[in-house]
Each structure stands twice: as structure tokens, then as C-alpha cells.
């Protein structure tokens, strides 16, 4: 299993453990969150034993934007991601998605609200084919109810829905140019193809917003280009992206807004040009990651 599930995390959300953000703050934030702000993170905290991995991080992501979250190793980017998506329970702070408080919700509840993530190390479902991987993702499949799947009369509806989904899946595969791999086991794909598959699969959930955790790590340059093109295409279609990335240049070239984390804290936030010239950011990177 992943490090995510092995970590001893406090069960549930205890109101007493939210020192910095009062409930009324969350409510006010919810009311104030304009439609243009799908994701709003407030004073997020996460501790592992004595280590504070995320220390009061607050930021916002604008609708339809491509926002980058960068920082040197151990800055707390992935932990922030895991707290937003419910893989970890945050020790403090709040996450608001489209004005609703999603702090402490389970990963599947968050995904069902339209906030879908991918993983740093591509987690394809190895012994399922590419087609099965994509067919898994869509929400509201009637056949996920056991009764509908086995009862003769009800199964007809399932078949009809699956026939429609199949078409959608093939279109998505063509969009990502991996349709030639459709019947391949996902485990047989190359690293870059897996990243494409993961993004395609996340897209099949029909999300409002996508959180991509290092989507370009271990991807060869030609596939990286392809993946970037797809991300830009999707952004033009109105999807919102939050991108965790290690590679500063890549973020600077592609994102319109950049959030920098360092040692669990928010270091800077702004346009790529400002971030490039921010002395604290330069120091953080030069100090740790030459």
C-alpha cells in the first residue's frame, strides 16, 4: 500500500484541533468564495509525529486556471495534495471546493464532487486493460449497483449505459493518442503512457478540477510535450488545473500562476515572472536543490 494509508492519521476531524480557523471563518469563507474560485485552502496543517509537514498553508486556485505548486524536496507539496484530496486527514485548517467545506471527507466523496487527482507515481490498474481502466472512472454508473448488474431486466439499462460510455472512452483514448494501446494491460505501458492513461482516466470522471501530482516525472520529452498539449487543450475547454511539479522551468513556462512552498510553509504566490525574481524563492531553491 501507499505511504498514504500507512501513516497514523488522526481519525476524523476534531473541531478542537482547528486552532487557527474557527468554524465561523469557514462559513464566512464559504459565503465569500466567489464562483471564480473553485479551490480555496485555508491554514492547512498536517503533522507526522513531531514533524510538521504542512504548516498553515493558505492559497486559492482560480477557475479555468493552470496553477503550479512548486517547491524543493520535502516542501510538503504532496502532503498538501493528499490533505486536499482526503488521502490524509488534515490536523488543522480547511479546504473549500466550490464554496463547500470538503475538509475531512473521504477520497471517494471528494472525487464525486468533481475534484479528481492523479498520483506522483502513476498508479494504473495493472491487470486491467487500458479500456477497463477508463471504463472504471465515470461517475453514476448504474451497473455499479449489484442488483442492476445481475437482474435480467435491469441489466439492459446497464448495457445501454455501457455502450454510450464505450464511445466516450474511445474518444478520450483518441484525444490522448493512446487508442492503439486500448486492449493492452495497463501494466505493459511505458512510464509516459501510464501518465497519459492516468490523466485520461481522471478526465473520464468528468471532473470540475484536476489535481496532477508530478505528471511529468519520468516522462520522456516527446511524451511530455504531448501531455502538456493535452493539458493546455483541456484548460481551453474550461477545466481547472492544480499542478504539483518539481521542475521549475516547466512550471514557469506553462502556468499562469505559481505557488511556492518551502519547509511546509507558503513561501510565495504570484505570476511566474514575479516568482522568478523573488529572492526568497531563489534562496530556497539554491539552498537546497542545486
Amino acid at each position: 500500500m501507499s505511504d498514504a494509508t500507512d501513516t497514523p492519521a488522526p481519525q476524523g476531524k476534531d473541531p478542537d484541533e482547528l486552532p487557527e480557523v474557527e468554524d465561523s471563518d469557514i462559513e464566512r469563507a464559504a459565503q465569500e468564495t466567489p464562483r471564480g474560485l473553485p479551490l480555496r485552502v485555508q491554514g492547512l496543517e498536517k503533522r507526522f509525529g513531531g514533524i510538521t509537514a504542512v504548516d498553515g498553508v493558505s492559497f486559492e486556485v482560480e477557475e479555468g486556471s493552470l496553477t503550479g505548486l512548486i517547491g524543493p524536496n520535502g516542501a510538503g507539496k504532496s502532503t498538501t495534495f493528499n490533505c486536499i484530496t482526503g488521502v490524509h486527514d488534515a490536523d488543522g485548517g480547511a479546504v473549500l471546493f466550490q464554496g463547500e467545506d470538503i475538509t475531512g471527507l473521504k477520497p471517494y466523496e471528494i472525487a464525486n464532487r468533481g475534484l479528481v487527482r492523479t498520483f506522483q507515481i502513476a498508479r494504473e490498474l495493472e491487470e486491467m486493460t487500458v479500456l477497463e481502466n477508463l471504463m472504471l472512472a465515470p461517475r453514476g454508473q448504474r451497473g455499479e449497483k449489484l442488483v442492476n448488474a445481475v437482474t435480467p431486466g435491469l441489466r439492459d439499462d446497464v448495457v445501454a449505459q455501457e455502450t454510450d460510455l464505450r464511445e466516450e472512452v474511445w474518444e478520450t483514448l483518441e484525444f490522448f493518442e493512446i487508442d492503439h494501446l486500448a486492449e493492452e494491460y495497463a501494466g505493459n505501458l511505458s512510464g509516459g503512457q501510464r501518465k497519459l492513461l492516468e490523466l485520461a482516466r481522471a478526465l473520464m470522471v468528468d471532473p470540475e478540477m484536476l489535481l496532477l501530482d508530478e505528471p511529468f516525472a519520468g516522462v520522456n520529452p516527446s511524451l511530455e510535450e504531448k501531455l502538456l498539449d493535452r493539458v493546455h487543450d483541456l484548460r481551453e475547454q474550461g477545466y481547472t488545473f492544480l499542478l504539483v511539479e518539481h521542475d521549475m522551468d516547466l512550471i514557469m513556462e506553462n502556468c499562469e500562476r505559481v505557488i511556492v512552498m518551502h519547509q511546509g510553509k507558503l513561501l510565495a504566490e504570484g505570476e511566474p515572472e514575479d516568482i522568478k525574481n523573488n529572492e526568497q524563492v531563489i534562496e530556497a531553491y539554491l539552498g537546497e536543490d542545486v
Partner: protein
Amino acid sequence: MSVAQRAWGAVPDSVKESDTQLIAGVLVFTYLLYVLAQTFLAVTNNAAILPAVANSLQNLTFLIAVYAIMALALNLHWGYTGLFNIGIAGFMAVGVYSMSILAAPTTGSPPGLGLPIPVAIVGAVAITAIVGGLAALPALQLDADYLAIVTVGFSEIIRLVLNASYFAGTVQDPEASGYNVVDIFGIQFGTGGGQGINTPTSSPADFLYSTTSLGDLLYGPSGDPNALGSAVYAAAESVGVNSSVVDGATYSFFLLVVVVTLYYVLLVRIGNSPFGRVLKAIREDELVAQSLGKDTRWFKVKVFMVGCALMGLGGILWQGSFGFVNPNTFRPIVTFYIFTALIVGGAGSNTGSVIGGAVFAAFLFEGPRQLARIVEALVTSAFGSLPSPTTFYAAVVSLNPLAWLGYTIDNVSTLKFVFLGAVLVYLMQNRSDGLLGHRKEIASSVDLSDRTTRNRESAAADGGESDE
């Protein structure tokens, strides 16, 4: 394996691709082999051929059917969802005992609830599902290895509770010191303890051959043949086959043709659906399934309950068909037999489960005994009767190869375990997918590849990319 591979290569592709033809082919091959073997044995023993063959085949059919049923049920847990349930014997025990207690007469020893048999069966399946669900709630939060420990512990607890004298129901005088009838809100029953408990019928075929009234159907037939029964028994008698073989053959045939088919169809429908797709995703990576919006815990509880219900029903049809069970029937070895059947057939494949059940029953479970009989017959006809030393030491120091062989044949039922172990080690190292585990059984109710607008040219052009 080269011989086996060559044999497999000789099988026409059309048979390999069609599941029903593949299963039928394996069964026909197995039966032919058994007919030949039993004919040979009957001839060498100067016995009548037809009754010997009929008796052997009905026994074989029963074993094939029950192992196929159980392997199919386990495939839902382990093959599909990756739930490592090694408490199968316990869930079978829950099914069989629930049915027996529900159906036992209220005045019996131990007393039961006196319900009609069909009601008892349905009730027992429901109880097994609920017990499975209760076991699942704490256990499914655990990772695979811990689930295995919990389920095997659970299975043993059930067996030991059934074995305990406290709930046996055998001492029915409330004043007596050993009073052990379970009394819940005035409903009294007992498990029979170590003595075991009677199941409603020792000959399920009587439901067909001696039912004359609705009462017979509900509370068990009398055993006196009805018109159909008399006709069938007489026909069988005329060729030397006695009525118990007819009963056995009828029930075995029912299990194989009706029950296995129903299980198979149900499990294929479960597997080839969006529900089955989520199960597969849970097996592969549960966090991914969650991140795609699937409430995996609920799926796991559901599938655990359904699988347990199928195991309970399998137990009823198998162990519940002999007229009597005791707790020792449900030792963990039963669980491991079923796992072996599924591993041989190929976890994850329903067709593989059926074939695994057949191959396990015919060649691993029954095979060694039959082979020993054939070898004994051959050697006896060549060298006269074999010596049969009583101990391993006596066999070895006799320095007589015939004594070694005789000792081996006498102990073949024990050596079977060594053989099973060797087969498992070989399979794990050389063919961990089993016979059919490598097959793509796509989890969808529609053919996903079937798409008219699909561009085959681009597949050819970019085909090499998958190798990078």
C-alpha cells in the same frame, strides 16, 4: 510441461476460445479417462463393468461439482476482489449448521426450529451472508494479510463453538447439571456439539424420486419411491446399478448441470459489469478506486456478503447432503483444497474456476487413489499380490521394491498431501496464473473493443511504442 504444452497446442483454437466448449472438453476428457480406468479395474477384479463405472462417475461428478461451486464462490472474493478469505470452511459450516438447526424437528435431539427445508435453506444462506457481513466489517479495514488471519481465526472459532458441549442441545432436562440447550426468547435449539448434527436428508435425490405430496417436499421425503422413482430404479436395476448409485448420480448431475451453471452465470454477470470492474480495481489498487469516486468499503462489504452466501449454499449442497455433519468436517484443510482448485484453474477466471474444480477433483483429489489402484492391479497381475508392510521402517528394511510399492499404495491417501504440495510449488514457480488465469476476461457488459469508427491503421503505425 512440454508434453502438456504440446497437448494444449493440439486443442483446436475454437475450443480454447469458447468457454463452454473448453469446460465441456475438459469434462469429456476426464470422464473418458475415468471410464477407461474403471473398466480396466472392473475387468481385473472380475467385477461387473457398468455398475463400477457408474458408481465411480457419480462420485467423480459430485466432487467436480462441489469443488467447482466453491472455487467459483472463492473466485469472487479472491480472484476478483483480492480479498484473501481463508475462512471458507467456517462459512460453509455456518450454512450447513444454520440449515440443520432451522430444519431440525423441535422435539429432536438436539432440538431445532422445525421449519420446512426450503425455508431452512433460504434462511441459512441469509444467515451466512449476515455472518459474513459482520465478519467483514472489522476485517475489511485491514490489509490483505490481516484479513487472511482474521478469516482463518474466525473459521476456527466457528468450528470450536460448534464443537463445544455448552451449545450442543443434547441434555434437554433444564434441571440436569449438563443442561446445554440454547434458549433465545423461548426458541430452543442446539448444535449437537462434537457428536454432530443431522442434516434434513441423506439422499437429496429423494426429492425427485420419492416425493408424493407437498409435505414430502417441505419436510423431507419418506424414501418410498414414487412412480418416477420406481421406474428409474427398476431400469437401473436391470443393468445391475443399485438405487443408491442412481440417487447419487441424479444429485451429482443436478449439482453439475444446474447449480454450477447458475453459479457460473451469476458470477459472470457480476464480473462483467461496472460492479465487477470496481471489484477488479479494488484488487489492483484500492486507493485509485477511491480517488475515482468509488466507495470501496461498501463494495467490499457487499461482495464479502454475496461470496459468503454462495459459500454457505455450497456447504449446504455439499456437506449438507450426507444426512449428517460434525464440526470436524470443517477443518481448514477444506479451505486449502478449495484454494488449490482455484489456483490450478486460475484465479480471476470464472471458466478457470470450473476447470480448476474439475481438474482438482479428478486428478489431484481422486487421481492418486485411482492411480494407486491401477498400479496395484497391474503389479499384482505381474508379480502376484503385493506385500503391505505396516510401518515405513518395515518397508525400508525389507529391501524389497515390491514392499516399498505396497507401502506407498497403502498410504496413498496421506501421500496425496505431499503430491498436492509439490503440484502447488510447481504451479507457483512455473505457472502462477493457473490454467486460465492469464486470459483477459474483460469486466464489462459490452464488448469494449467493438467499435466501428476505430482506426486500425494508427494502431499498426504506433504499435512499437508500447515497447519503449
